[in-house]
């Protein structure tokens, strides 16, 4: 309790409500930091690329894609309190939704889905992710706590082993995507265009999550996180709301998977191993679950540290793990909570 922000006194009684809070929020430190961060996220790789350094564009493209995945996970983890340990499965599904149609369009067979059309890939990624989320969510959400973690992980591993066993699509060895999704107006073969597409998608994802968590729907899933019994007693069937949140989250992550396939032009089951799901959880917790942009901070720190530390030692996981434990133990609200206290507030 002592860590809560200082008591907020009523500014004025009449209509003190939405308008004034919204007004104050628009100019809050957290929001300014978020904007600055997003500008840096775009400026650094683009400037480096224009200066002739392609390395950073590569890193940052990966970063924006994984940020979308982490932002999607945060919708159910940070705001819904649902610790999904199988989210990487959506990344894989989305990537295979690009890889398999491209594979068939080049090698023939399975004409129904053979295509290099990017809009079709995205539609397929979204559709498959939604169906998978609906089925696994409908079952998983009947459990709580540790059981939910275990069952989402089990579903994730099922997809992992399915991908391993389907030799037509490379099985364990993975599948090379010989052609990127073709989209109207832009070519994803251009690294700058690919980054722009991913970055725009991240902004859209942040905006969508921001709208959702502040909507009627959002306050119900946030309420169910803290106090499910109370939400039920008020008259909300938490299960239905959580299921929709789970599906939305899965769809966003599947979309990120389609981007990832286009970025790496190679997919393998390793992409959806449970350790990958764990990394997504790390990003969310590290950055601050409960702040919309928190996972972007988490993903940035995660990837940059990985990049830097792995240059010094192949045992970089050890100090990295210690950092994570420290973050969980000592920093409430993750790094974004540390930067500006209000960022840890749940409605930013």
């Amino acid at each position, binding site marked *: 309790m002592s860590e809560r922000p200082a008591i907020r006194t009523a500014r004025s009684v009449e209509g003190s409500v939405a308008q004034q809070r919204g007004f104050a929020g628009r100019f809050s430190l957290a929001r300014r930091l978020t904007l600055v961060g997003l500008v840096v996220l775009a400026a650094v790789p683009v400037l480096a690329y224009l200066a002739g350094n392609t390395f950073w564009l590569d890193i940052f493209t990966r970063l924006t894609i994984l940020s979308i995945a982490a932002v999607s996970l945060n919708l159910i983890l940070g705001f819904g309190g649902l610790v999904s340990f199988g989210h990487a499965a959506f990344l894989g599904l989305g990537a295979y939704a690009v890889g398999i149609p491209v594979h068939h369009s080049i090698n023939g067979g399975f004409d129904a889905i053979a295509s290099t059309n990017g809009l079709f890939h995205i539609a397929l990624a979204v559709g498959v992710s939604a169906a998978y989320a609906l089925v696994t969510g409908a079952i998983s959400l009947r459990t709580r706590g540790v059981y939910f973690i275990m069952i989402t992980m089990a579903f994730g591993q099922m997809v992992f082993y399915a991908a391993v066993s389907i030799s037509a699509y490379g099985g364990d060895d993975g599948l090379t995507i010989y052609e990127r999704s073709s989209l109207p107006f832009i070519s994803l073969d251009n690294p700058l265009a690919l980054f722009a597409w991913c970055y725009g998608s991240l902004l859209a994802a942040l905006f969508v999550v921001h*709208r959702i968590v502040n909507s009627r729907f959002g*306050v119900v899933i946030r309420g169910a996180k803290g106090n499910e019994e109370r939400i*039920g*007693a008020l008259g909300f069937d938490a299960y239905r709301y959580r299921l929709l949140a789970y599906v939305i989250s899965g769809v966003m992550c599947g979309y990120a998977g389609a981007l990832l396939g286009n970025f790496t032009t190679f997919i393998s089951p390793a992409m959806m191993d449970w350790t990958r799901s764990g990394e997504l959880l790390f990003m969310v917790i590290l950055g601050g679950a409960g702040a919309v942009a928190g996972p972007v901070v988490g993903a940035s720190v995660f990837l940059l540290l990985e990049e830097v530390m792995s240059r010094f030692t192949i045992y970089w996981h050890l100090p990295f793990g210690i950092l994570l434990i420290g973050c969980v133990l000592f920093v409430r609200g993750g790094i974004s909570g540390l930067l500006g206290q209000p960022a840890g507030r749940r409605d930013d």
Partner: protein
Amino acid sequence: MTDPVMRVRGLRKRFGGVCATDDVSLDVLVGETHAIIGPNGAGKTTLLSLLSGQLKPDGGSVIFNGRDVTRLPAHARAHVGIARSFQVTSVFADLTVHDNVALAVQAHHGHSFRLWHPVRKERSLREPAFELLRVMGLDDRADWIAGNLSHGERRQLELAMALAGAPKLLLLDEPMAGMGSDETARMIEILGSLDGQAMLLIEHDMDAVFTLADRISVLVSGRIIATGLPDHIRANEEVRRAYLGESV
């Protein structure tokens, strides 16, 4: 005579070897404040949870306004008009006071599969919520984070949330628990002002019970041993022995 708001018959609930609710039958009449008293561990909260739907009974029936709600889950019971408060204060501590009540209003105001419009700008939720806060005397706390309220204020907030759906029956689990005497007096005043509201009240504070209750039922070891008017209960030998702790 009009039908009771709630009619409970032969309600039973076991936890392992413990019979927490043992063949309980009681009526809550229209507009009545019905208090349930009994020693610790008598099964009062269990009974309340069976009536509000958090728990499922092993047997017996709960009829609400002529409708069998025995098997209805809690969220569906809220919609037929049964609201409850919790013994351990159960507000959303991270939300503001106003947000808390607005969320309670929202539960009875259309569906909540609206994912885009900012909920804080919905006047149809904010205004009724503010009105409830005004009634409860919490309007000057509207912008506070609920977790920062005093204990008594949180209990008032909880009551405001329970009242948000204009329930036909209010189930209150020890609304005065842990309160100072000023806060208790304030809560008694608030509850007393809810004219015509059918209430089932669990309470340990005997002053509150005898001030508010129209009728009292005494629960001991999961069984109701007496039901009657306050004076009748006060005079009942068995009740005095079992509960009021007087040796006769």
